């Protein structure tokens, strides 16, 4: 295989050489999964970075959806063709962390090339999630989001609800949803994207209850799910009951429900803060509230956990390339770049300075609600329950949870059965993954 690796390397450098005219420039490849307006942000940042210096050329390449991008990266690594930077979604974090031999921690990349690197300038809630238990920062948080509540003000008006006061707890959401449905203001009261991320992972963190043992997997691999505790069962039974008459409407496993809300079918909606763009563009009269919490939970609201994606650096690259990557990350951390990213995309700023600057610029006054996700994530110091969740096979575990939810919502099983099954099957899958 050595020989093939060499041949591939030569071939790769030949193609690289043939596509660029400036030989002295070191190319840094960045594989990403950004589409639409977010892809424009990627292209603009890359162009600006390339224009800002002349030693490195950043080449962003779209590789499909999040899972497709992760797979392309893995396939390329196995074939000895890994890119320098790979964007990996939150669920893939555990996968990347388990692959210690394949990646180079961002902290090492930044310090290894004698550049100043100060972890404290980044938002702690986000950086904590992308770090090892000992605090070493492994990946660079590029786009982070947090689930928030959106509501349709016109529907609220029609249903006789307070337009300026969105529901704060889940019970209030259920009541408001019922009122919307019975008053005929809209055919459905409430819908949500990402049940696993919002109603399990963030539900647990926000209400300060355990999602799984071992600090939700952050402290070690031997993890058991805790999601069949009564607080989860009650929550999901409420959802299942509301689903029976269509007060709650299921949209799909990922972000599909956004379309239901945009079509004006449902009055209340929980979704990532990164989904704001579509809602603004639809011209809807919308409002934003913080993620609801469970009124029975003691510490609620605690803090939410980051979703989105981070940038990983592959191992076995040349020093020159690492220098380029470090230069890019340094550029990306600049306040004006972060401000642009945050204001254009709805993702969170990753540095404190960018947050302060955005605040000072009056952006949040003009765009009420845009600060909500930042406050949710940084409002309180995270507990063992709210630093995020991490599993080597989180995609698979989420799949299992979704399958059980779908059976529950179709009326084939109760919430207790669904969550019990999800725990049993999930634990078995985690154990299996650890054996590999």
């Amino acid at each position: 295989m050595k020989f093939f690796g060499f041949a591939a390397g030569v071939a790769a450098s030949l193609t690289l050489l043939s596509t660029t005219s400036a030989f002295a420039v070191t190319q840094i490849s960045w594989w990403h999964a950004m589409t639409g307006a977010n892809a424009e942000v990627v292209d603009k940042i890359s162009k600006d970075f390339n224009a800002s210096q002349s030693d490195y050329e950043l080449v962003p390449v779209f590789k499909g959806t999040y899972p497709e991008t992760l797979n392309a990266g893995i396939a390329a690594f196995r074939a000895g063709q890994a890119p320098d930077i790979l964007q990996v979604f939150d669920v893939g974090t555990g996968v990347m962390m388990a692959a210690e031999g394949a990646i180079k921690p961002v902290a090492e990349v930044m310090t290894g090339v004698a550049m100043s690197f100060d972890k404290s300038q980044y938002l702690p809630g986000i950086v904590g999630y992308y770090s090892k238990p000992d605090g070493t920062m492994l990946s660079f948080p590029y786009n982070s989001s947090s689930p928030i509540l959106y509501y349709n003000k016109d529907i609220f008006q029609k249903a006789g609800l307070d337009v300026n006061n969105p529901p704060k707890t889940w019970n209030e959401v259920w009541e408001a949803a019922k009122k919307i449905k019975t008053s005929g203001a809209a055919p459905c009261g409430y819908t949500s994207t990402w049940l696993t991320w919002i109603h399990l992972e963030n539900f647990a963190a926000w209400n300060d209850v355990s999602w799984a043992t071992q600090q939700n997997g952050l402290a070690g691999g031997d993890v058991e799910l805790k999601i069949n505790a009564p607080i989860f069962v009650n929550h999901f039974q409420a959802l299942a009951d509301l689903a029976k008459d269509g007060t709650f409407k299921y949209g799909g496993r990922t972000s599909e429900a956004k379309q239901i809300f945009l079509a004006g079918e449902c009055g209340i909606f929980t979704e990532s803060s990164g989904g704001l763009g579509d809602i603004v563009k639809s011209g809807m009269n919308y409002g934003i509230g913080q993620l609801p919490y469970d009124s029975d939970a003691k510490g609620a609201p605690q803090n939410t956990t980051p979703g989105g994606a981070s940038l990983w650096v592959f191992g076995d690259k040349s020093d020159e390339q690492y220098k380029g990557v470090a230069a890019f990350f340094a550029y990306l951390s600049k306040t004006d770049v972060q401000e642009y990213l945050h204001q254009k995309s709805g993702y969170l700023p990753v540095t404190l300075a960018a947050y302060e600057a955005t605040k000072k610029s009056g952006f949040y006054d003009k765009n009420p609600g845009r600060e909500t996700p930042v406050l949710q994530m940084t409002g309180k110091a995270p507990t063992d329950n709210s630093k995020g969740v991490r599993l080597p096979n989180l995609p698979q575990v989420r799949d299992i949870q979704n399958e059980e939810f779908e059976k529950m919502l179709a009326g084939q099983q109760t919430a207790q059965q669904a969550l019990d099954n999800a725990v049993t099957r999930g634990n078995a899958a985690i154990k299996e993954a650890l054996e590999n």
Partner: protein
Amino acid sequence: MAPQLAITLVFFYWPAGQALYQSMLRQDPFGLRSRFVWFANFRKVLADPAYLNSIQVTVVFSLATAIVAMCVALLLAVMAEKAVRGKGLYRTLLIWPYAVAPAIAGMLWLFLFNPSIGSLAYLLRSLGIAWDPLLNGTHAMILLVSAAAWKQISYNFLFFVAGLQAVPKTLIEAAAMDGAGETKRFWTIVFPLLAPTTFFLLVVNTVYALFDTFGIVHAVTGGGPGKTTETLVYKVYNDGFVNLILGDSAAQSVILMAIVIALTAIQFRYVERKVHYG
């Protein structure tokens, strides 16, 4: 023959060999650690109820797709033969979907029948049908079969039209003089003569339904709700590329290859012999 063999060897048997080797390994996604486990992956896959479910789903889906696509196409082809005027126009209008990529076809059907922005879903709902492919497995399967069959109708239609035109007019006229009715003429003369076409289409449609519909499943249902539309190929993809359990995924590919070889053998041994060659 040499060039095809060479390409087949390099781009098919070489990777297939690697898949076979992979199917006996347990490996982390990056290939950093691996363990040789002989047939453990196969035992695990075959004992998995989800896998058996997926076989059932595949059989239902493939049969439904092949039957729907071929029957509709045959009906339209026969009608097109009858409609003397405007035949060319009909044909042109009927063959469009063939040119649409599965990934795009899936997207279009989703666009029409998506419970939220789909206009046809809206229509169904206003007719009082609780259309919900996201939670109702039967609805999801119907949507999937419709999308898959829709894309294949044109292809079948073209071949049936060609087949029908090749039927000698004199034979039909002779039968008509003998007093055979239209329906009888079709089943006793035309249909048997269409056998080679039908056989070819059967093979193509089965293969299409088994494998090429990946793009459609991927775009329309993603295997859900639950696991009600998870076909074998989709499961190979999902286990290997989403869940990153490479050994299981490779074992499934190998089982698929075995199924395929068996199917092919059966088709050639028993079906081809009966087929009427002109």
